[in-house]
């Protein structure tokens, strides 16, 4: 693309309805997610009950706020509703991004790629004019009201969704997934009680079929959605795929979010019809918004700034998943650069970590009962991930220092089993973990994997 065609692309506009529909769906689904999360009692179970929380590197300062944690969820839910309504959109989407990200940063035990997707999608939406059409803001402010938005603002959402799918597909191109049908071979037989599918899920060929078609789906669906002729057919695939994953795995609201956001690929006709329907139900005058106006950023620097940030955002999104290449060793084993990379459902990892506290002054040594400090969920996550193990060891050091051991040494005997392999020693049991500071450097205190998983 030469400069002039790039310029003409950037100045091109499209009907704003797809962006408005996305905003409404996103806001409503987020509101439902928050309500569902609260209704299951997860706020208490995950963020109030535990006495210790695992932090992301550099985000130790993000901690649950005791009873005030509920307030963060209320802010998050309300801002999601306001986003759906397009009411004080910019402030609402910023508040949503901040509160949602804060929730996710409080404890990395609950890390899910889905939550990360929500975080970065809401970040992206801060810079998009999603409130210029069919919103409370546009209804009240005639100057804002515009039927046309920059084409790139819709394409940015499409690009993000394409990255998610395509990178998830790339990550599946490994020998465990394709040649061993792992971890599906472990997960699917356990779903024996699902009606109709239960028996089928016992068959080995089904595991392979799921593995291969899953990889193929992830790699091809962006293109099938982009290409007009294959789009309806691709959307049916999207629905089938996500409904199936919903049936098979406990993945909460994610399938609905992905199905909803895939609508962005359709022409504005569909979205205008959806909005007409909604207008019919709630007696809203849609024609008020159909003013054929083209949205202009109020100030030139706002347009340039938004585009600059979005460009930087995508460059980062494209590079971040490949950061694992900077580390030696097997990615699945060390998990150095595993998160934030759309590596979804690739591993069945089970572990066991038995911590030993040594008082060097008198040689006294004893083992820690993890349930004294961690919830079962936290213990499970901790026992397979080295950054958790290290952080917990430092927590134990502080704890036993308060208990009167001046310089406790913390060792761990740990075993991890990955994708059906026999459990093996994980962390070097002779390393005093209090001597190691958390960092993003390669961890040489993990035993090597002694096996190979080929592929990306």
């Amino acid at each position, binding site marked *: 693309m030469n400069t002039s065609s790039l310029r003409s692309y950037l100045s091109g506009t499209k009907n704003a309805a797809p962006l408005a529909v996305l905003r409404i769906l996103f806001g409503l689904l987020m509101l439902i997610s928050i309500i569902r999360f609260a209704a299951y009692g*997860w706020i208490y*179970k*995950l963020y109030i009950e535990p006495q210790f929380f695992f932090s992301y590197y550099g985000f130790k300062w993000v901690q649950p706020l005791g009873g005030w944690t509920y307030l963060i969820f209320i802010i998050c839910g309300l801002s999601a509703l306001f986003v759906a309504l397009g009411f004080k959109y910019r402030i609402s989407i910023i508040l949503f991004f901040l509160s949602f990200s804060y929730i996710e940063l409080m404890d990395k035990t*609950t890390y*899910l*790629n*889905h939550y990360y997707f929500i975080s970065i999608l809401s970040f992206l939406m801060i810079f998009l004019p999603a409130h210029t059409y069919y919103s409370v803001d546009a209804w009240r402010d005639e100057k804002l009201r515009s039927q046309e938005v920059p084409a790139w603002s819709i394409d940015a959402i499409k690009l993000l969704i394409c990255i998610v799918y395509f990178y998830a597909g790339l990550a599946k191109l490994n020998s465990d997934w394709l040649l*061993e*049908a792992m971890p599906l*071979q*472990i*997960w699917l*037989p*356990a*779903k*024996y*009680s699902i009606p109709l599918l*239960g*028996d089928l899920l*016992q*068959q*080995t*060929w089904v*595991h*392979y*079929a799921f593995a*291969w*078609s899953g990889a*193929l789906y992830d790699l091809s669906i962006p293109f099938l959605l982009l290409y007009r002729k*294959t789009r309806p057919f691709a959307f049916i695939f999207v629905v089938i795929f996500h409904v199936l994953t919903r049936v098979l*795995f*406990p*993945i*909460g*609201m*994610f399938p609905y979010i992905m199905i909803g956001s895939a609508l962005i690929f359709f022409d504005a006709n569909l979205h205008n019809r959806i909005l007409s329907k909604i207008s019919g139900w709630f007696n809203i005058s849609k024609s008020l918004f159909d003013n054929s106006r083209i949205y202009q950023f109020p100030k030139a620097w706002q347009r340039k700034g938004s585009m600059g940030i979005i460009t930087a955002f995508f460059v980062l999104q494209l590079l971040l998943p490949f950061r694992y290449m900077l580390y030696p060793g097997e990615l699945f084993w060390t998990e150095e650069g595993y998160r934030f990379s759309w590596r979804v*459902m690739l591993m*069945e990892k*089970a*572990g*066991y970590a*038995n911590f030993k506290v040594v008082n060097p002054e008198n040689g*006294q*040594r*004893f*083992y*820690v*009962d993890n349930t004294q400090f961690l*919830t*079962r*969920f936290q*213990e*499970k996550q901790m026992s397979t991930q080295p950054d958790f193990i290290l952080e917990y060891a430092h927590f134990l050091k502080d704890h036993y220092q308060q208990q009167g051991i001046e310089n406790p040494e913390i060792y761990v005997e740990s*075993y*991890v*089993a990955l994708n*059906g*392999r*026999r*459990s093996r020693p994980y962390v070097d049991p002779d390393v005093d973990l209090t001597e190691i500071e958390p960092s993003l450097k390669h961890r040489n205190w993990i035993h090597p994997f002694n096996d190979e998983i080929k592929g990306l």
Partner: protein
Amino acid sequence: MKKFSLLLLTVFVVWGCTNNAPSGPNADDFDRQAILENWANNLIIPGFTHFAETTAELQVQAEAFSETPSPQNLTALREAWKESYLAFQHVSMFEMGKAMELNYRNNLNIYPTDTDEIEGSIESGEYNLALPSLLDSQGFPALDYLLYGLGENDAEILNYYTTNTNAEGYRTYLVDLSQRIDSLTKEVLNHWTSGYRDEFVSNTGNDANASLDMMVNDYIYYYEKHLRAGKIGIPAGVFSGSPLSGHVEAYYSDDFSKALFNEALTASINFFNGTHFNSDQNGQSLDDYLEYLEIDKEGSGLATLINTQFDSARSEAENLNPDFAAQVESDNSLMLSTYDELQRNVVFMKVDMLQALNINVDYVDADGD
């Protein structure tokens, strides 16, 4: 695109027809319900039935002793207590349904028992054994104290029930304890035979509340906390840094802690292999399920590995003194090496087995990726 889809379809069809899978479960579905049936019919209910017989006998002997506190009756009561305590090792792991509701295991077997609290209750004569605060002054450990720990020798112990100013208080407390053990046990057994068995067997789903997941979690929890840690690890000082001989099971009746441990280990092995209660007959259990899944690709199967490890623990424990308290004090390293052998199976079961069975370790059913 069309050509590619066609190619892919062909690959799948060929795959489906030849079914030349390198590894993985057989095409035939495995009958998981058979495991639940075997556990309920041949281990749990017979185990509780037998245990209930011993608790009834325990109560009879306690009442007989209370009426006539003779040396002969003391011996008979102690025998009944030992029989019952051994039988309990076969049901202790089944803390589910009614047992979970009643906090059954904690009512029957918290040790070390709180002797001050026992003496206080006897002295005041006012106590409600249903209170959670009195969990550690009842059950088998409290009886252990009352039958063996009150005095230096049998004559001294008998005096508490005969000539002591509060002899009646001691006799009543003794009877109350055995009554409570018996009534709680009957309640649990009744619940199993009047409906819960069917509920248990038919709950074949695969969520965290399904019988298989629940039972396997309970089993591993029991093995880790009560067998490995409670009977061996805690007295050996694994969690405290220094040995705690006072924390052995059946501390006051010398020479009995090893027998209880061996019985509990046998019960754990039987459960894993589905060996029927009080019989050599073998039914469906975790070992068969693991063999069916065959996910493990390395050498001998996981079930064999776990059984071999059970054997190692058993033979390591053979060298132990019948009285663990004496063992801890004389040569704790033998206790520690037994602990290590037991510990290896925690890894095999908690990591390898749970992975193979794809059982949820956590009860928080949060969303997954």
